[in-house]
């Protein structure tokens, strides 16, 4: 061995070649390995997106999830106001809660470590306890990976060309198989029951259909709605707007499912056998009902079940009011409505047809001969369009047209009809005019998306080749020397933001004036109530504010003996609101008379 060993000096330096390499030893500060792509760590809930449906809590097989009230979250339409809290001590990280979350608000994060010596610290409200979790989401659900069934079972419909040939129903409705499949999509969260004006027991009757118990479904519907089949066909179905599945997919077809269940009872007799109502013995109290529309019929039906002697005074040949005379038969056939009314008559509701209150019988008589009176007269009188030339022949209010057609008449509208308005009545007027053989144009002041009509009705009109002209303001109706309508003068409009923060307003464009040749003008811009049947004495007793009767939360007017409901009372003015009013009045009348 040499005295001066060069190797001994140089060799240790060879370790320097490792200088740039990544160390295999533990690094400080400690670095975590990146978790797998779909790692299921602690939960994170987007509290804004969550609607509190509770599906996560229901699916959890470890009962680790509770729904709780949080201080800063209030319930509202389409939100239960509850939020999930997870007991991480019970959670097994299966992530089913994430996969069934209809909104996608509940997710799992990359956070895989949580240490605490306090056992209570494992009770977490995701999103509140870990707001930073939103940046480290890992296991999420999208429309493809979610276990929610987002696609609605399609509704079979008649072809557009076939439709306009007759007044046959355009919807062909669900078969049994389709209805069971559609009903099975419901997660039974019950958010829908809140926005239903009548608070129908929606998850229960849908679940009954899913389980194949159609008769139970009918009984549940009849618990607080005696016109279920009518609603199944034409309801404004606000329930579907808040369906938990609608957030990322299609709402459950609540309306069509109700139609399916109710159509199982083909006649009034079968309906009576299925509903098999518990009719109380007569209690000796008499109730008079003015108007046989949805509100009056509902009040009459449930009052009769409670043993009251009920008489409905109906001006027309058939009961049903606006749903009989205002809704075209291709949406609601007469037989369907009559079946429901025949059943009501069979349990003791008396209806005096062709009896107009104020003409054939005075309101005073009804008031004096009954222990309580329910007024459900609706909005019958159409508003004027409010433009020049309106008094010409060939200008018809939509409700009058619908009344005539539903009474069996076939008015001649000429070759071209213009309908003014954008609500359901306007669409009904347009689609009926198509069936009478005319070309039809709808003029609406705002955009199509602003139309208050049901989107399915608008689509229906489009399929039937109704031409919708949005942002069009009619200014004058032109007629010939015989005072017969020949045309309509209109302006195009542009949408301008409203300074007051309201919805955008249509502002006429200067110089856009044009004339369209038409043979008939149909006005559908709203209706009001006709109180001519009330004498001054009663007008003073019942307070009327801006055309509506003022009632308390029990449907009672300022005269405690008079109750009221329907379009002439509520602001929503649809059939289901009228039914809700009638049902509420029943409870109030019973409480008031039977105290």
């Amino acid at each position: 061995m040499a005295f001066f060993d060069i190797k001994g000096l140089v060799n240790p330096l060879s370790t320097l070649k490792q200088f740039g390499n990544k160390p295999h030893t533990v690094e400080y500060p400690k670095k975590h390995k990146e978790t797998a792509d779909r790692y299921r760590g602690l939960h994170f809930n987007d509290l804004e997106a969550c609607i509190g449906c509770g599906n996560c809590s229901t699916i959890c097989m470890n009962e680790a999830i509770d729904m709780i009230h949080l201080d800063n979250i209030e319930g509202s339409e389409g939100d239960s106001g509850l939020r999930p809290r997870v007991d991480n001590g019970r959670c097994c990280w299966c992530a089913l809660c994430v996969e069934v979350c209809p909104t996608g608000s509940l997710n799992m994060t990359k956070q895989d470590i949580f240490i605490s010596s306090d056992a209570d610290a494992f009770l977490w409200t995701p999103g509140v306890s870990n707001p930073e979790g939103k940046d480290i989401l890992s296991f999420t659900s999208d429309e493809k990976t979610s276990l929610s069934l987002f696609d609605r079972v399609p509704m079979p419909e008649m072809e557009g060309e076939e439709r306009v040939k007759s007044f046959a129903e355009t919807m062909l409705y669900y078969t049994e198989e389709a209805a069971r499949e559609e009903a099975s999509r419901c997660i039974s969260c019950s958010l829908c029951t809140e926005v239903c004006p009548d608070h129908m027991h929606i998850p229960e009757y849908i679940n009954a259909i899913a389980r194949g118990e159609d008769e139970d479904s009918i009984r549940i519907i009849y618990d607080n709605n005696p016109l279920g089949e009518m609603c199944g066909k034409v309801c404004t179905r606000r329930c579907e707007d808040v369906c938990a599945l609608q957030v990322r997919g299609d709402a459950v077809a609540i309306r069509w499912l109700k139609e399916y269940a109710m159509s199982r009872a083909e006649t009034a007799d079968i309906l009576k056998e299925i509903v098999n109502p518990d009719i109380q013995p007569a209690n000796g109290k008499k109730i008079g009902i003015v108007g046989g529309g949805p509100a009056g019929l509902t009040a009459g039906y449930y009052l009769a079940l409670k043993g009251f002697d009920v008489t409905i005074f109906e001006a027309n040949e058939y009961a049903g009011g606006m749903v009989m005379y205002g809704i075209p038969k291709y949406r609601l056939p007469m037989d369907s409505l009559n079946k429901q009314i025949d059943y009501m008559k069979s349990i003791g509701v008396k209806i005096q047809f062709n009896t107009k209150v104020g003409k054939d019988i005075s309101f005073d008589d009804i008031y004096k001969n009954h222990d309580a009176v329910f007024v459900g007269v609706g909005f019958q009188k159409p508003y004027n369009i409010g433009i020049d030339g309106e008094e010409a022949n060939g200008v018809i209010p939509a409700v009058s047209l619908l009344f005539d057609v539903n009474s069996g008449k076939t008015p001649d509208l000429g070759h071209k009809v213009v309908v003014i308005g954008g609500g359901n009545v306007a669409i009904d007027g347009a689609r009926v005019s198509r069936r009478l053989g005319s070309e039809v144009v709808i003029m609406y002041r705002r955009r199509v998306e602003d139309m208050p009509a049901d989107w399915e009705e608008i689509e229906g009109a489009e399929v039937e080749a109704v031409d919708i002209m949005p942002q069009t303001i009619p200014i004058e109706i032109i007629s010939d020397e015989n005072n017969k309508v020949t045309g309509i003068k209109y302006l195009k409009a542009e949408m301008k933001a409203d300074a007051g923060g309201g919805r955008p307003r249509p502002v006429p464009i200067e110089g856009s004036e044009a004339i369209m040749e038409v043979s008939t003008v149909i006005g559908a811009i709203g209706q009001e109530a006709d109180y001519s049947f009330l004498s001054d004495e009663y007008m003073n007793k019942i307070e009327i504010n801006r055309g509506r009767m003022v009632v308390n939360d029990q449907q009672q007017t300022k005269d405690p003996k008079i109750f009221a409901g329907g379009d002439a009372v509520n602001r929503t003015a649809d059939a289901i609101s009228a039914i809700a009013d009638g049902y509420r009045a029943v409870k109030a009348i019973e409480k008031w008379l039977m105290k």
Partner: protein
Amino acid sequence: MTDISLEKEQKIADELERTFPNLTARVRRARRVMASLEKELIPSVLVHAKDNLGFHHLSHMSVVDWIEDEHFEMVYTLWNHEKRVQLTIKTMISRDNATMANIDTIWRQANTYQREMREMFGIEFPGFVGEKDFLLEDWDEMPPMRRDFDTMEYANKTYFSRPGREDAQDVRDTISKRNGEEVPDFAKKYSREK
């Protein structure tokens, strides 16, 4: 482009059907062949596939619980490295007294799978030697992967509910209370389970 004719796959399927008359085989797609047959022939088919058809590798073993039909479906997945074909062999066995031939003499790794199947589904393999416990310790309940095992009942029986959870609300009750909706008693059986 790879060869999209399914010739090699069809040859394997035909060969299997020829050798075992009660076996049905079909080509699912390129590189995937599926065969199903009765339980008794499983060891013979596996040995034949391994020794004569080149499926040297057992990739996976699995069980499906078809509770409605009262069957378990045993699934064996084999791989032929040379031909790059996967062969899936399936058979149904009765759900009561579920027994299946032990195949860890053909592939040693089957031992681990069979221990798992015994523990999770309760399938017995006569003559099979393996540690009794696999993942569960001292388990004397129904095997937990069987579909009739009630996870919720087990969780509630085994783990106490932590204090501090008494403020939990029911969504249905919260909403109906807010609106004054009275759900009739006869309808409540259709409400969501609490």
